């Protein structure tokens, strides 16, 4: 953390909630307290389009939305990009339904409304970091794989040259 209280970490966070006031409240808070790029959507469909293009590290979705609920949305996010961290925001009354569906989506965390800002920040920060580490790991694995292939190629050439 830098002196001004910012997180000092980069990353993109997508928020999806059909209630504008919820988006505003979270965006305002994250703008003040972190340096993430925050994209808010009231429409799950538009959020999906953006997630494909922007490759956010974390997605925070409301559970009850008209059209597509948060679980369905996160299920589709998982198909598009499994390394993005998926977080669900639920109203107290929807809790049971949400919990039942959590395993289906491979949820990182679920939060209840009304949420605590400090806790939300922590969850999002850990979620972004987790996704970032996954992607780093992916890259390293790919690098190792291509290095491995190169080694194989070299070995093949050595064998061909000397035998």
């Amino acid at each position, binding site marked *: 953390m830098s002196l*001004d*209280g910012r997180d000092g970490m980069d990353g993109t966070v997508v928020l999806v909630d*059909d*209630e*504008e*006031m*919820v988006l*505003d*409240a*979270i*965006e*305002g*808070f994250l*703008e*003040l*307290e972190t340096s993430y790029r925050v994209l808010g959507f009231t429409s799950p469909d538009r959020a999906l389009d953006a997630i494909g293009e922007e490759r956010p590290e974390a997605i925070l979705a409301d559970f009850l939305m*008209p059209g597509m609920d948060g679980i369905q949305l996160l299920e589709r996010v998982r198909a598009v990009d499994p390394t993005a961290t998926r977080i669900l925001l639920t*109203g*107290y*009354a929807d809790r049971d339904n949400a919990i039942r569906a959590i395993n289906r989506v491979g949820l990182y965390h679920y939060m209840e*409304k*009304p*949420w605590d*800002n400090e806790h*939300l920040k922590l969850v999002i920060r850990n979620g972004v970091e987790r996704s970032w580490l996954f992607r780093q790991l992916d890259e390293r694995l790919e690098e190792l794989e291509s290095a491995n292939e190169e080694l194989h190629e070299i070995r093949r050439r050595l064998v061909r040259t000397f035998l």
Partner: protein
Amino acid sequence: MTAPGIVVLVVGGVALLGLGVTVGGLWARRRADRLDRRYRDLEREARELREACRELRASYAELQSSEAAQVNDARVSSVGSLVAGVAHEMNTPLGALNASHDTFRRALDRLQDILADERVDPEELEEVRRIVRAVDRTARTQDLAFERLAHVVDELRAFGRPDDAEISVVDLHDGLESTLTVLGHELGDRIVVERRYGDLPPVECHPHRLNQVFLNLLSNAIHAIHGPGTIVVGTDAGDGQVTVAIEDSGVGIPEEDLPKIFDAGFTTRKERKGMGLGLLISQQIVHQHGGRIEVESRPGEGSTFRVRLPVRIPASGARAGGAGEAGP
């Protein structure tokens, strides 16, 4: 006639008489026995009837009290779902307010820190601008959340129905017209309103409450129409009664939903602006006037809501009826 002959005759006569009395006595006793049995039978039957009657009365009382319990259950669960609806409706704006208030505090603390420092440099001014942007956004959340909470409280207040509304004798067409004016921007060019007004006598009522009913029914009609459509507002009178009919060319109500439309919490509006109390409140207001609301709907073609009101409020309708049904 000789003396012995007479004696024989007398003895014979006495014997005959004795026989006759004996036979008669026997017959009478048998008859009495029969009557006695009959009487006992009747008495038993009467006892059985009395018993059956008592049982019937008991089970009738039981039925009555269980019916009362059912009505009470329905009322309790209706209030329960109302309370759950209110809690649900409050949760989102409260959550938003809570979070944005927290952001507000943090931002103010930071601004105060910067302002307390006498050597403010340009870089820090950029930080101040950023904080002000966050505060601005927070204030916007609070506007929206307060507005939503105020709306919920308004609906609740209407449900709890303050008794200050005056009774007067009015032309219902005036109320319909002012309600249509209020809804003007929602009707727009999309919906044509056709007026089929009959001759109405002046009606004794709480005009503001009836306007609320008209507002609710017309607003439902508008929401039932997707795209262009028509709303027909008709009135007529007869037999000491007036009828206001609001007919829309909207989507109609599925048959399975018809019994539920007056329940607390029933709504088809997706934008979550209402709590599904509109029709319940309307029905309550119309009941207070001694009237009723009738619904007719054909899915895909539209719905008609008819408000039937007596020209004069019945003595028992306005107060007693309301006190029993309402209550927060």
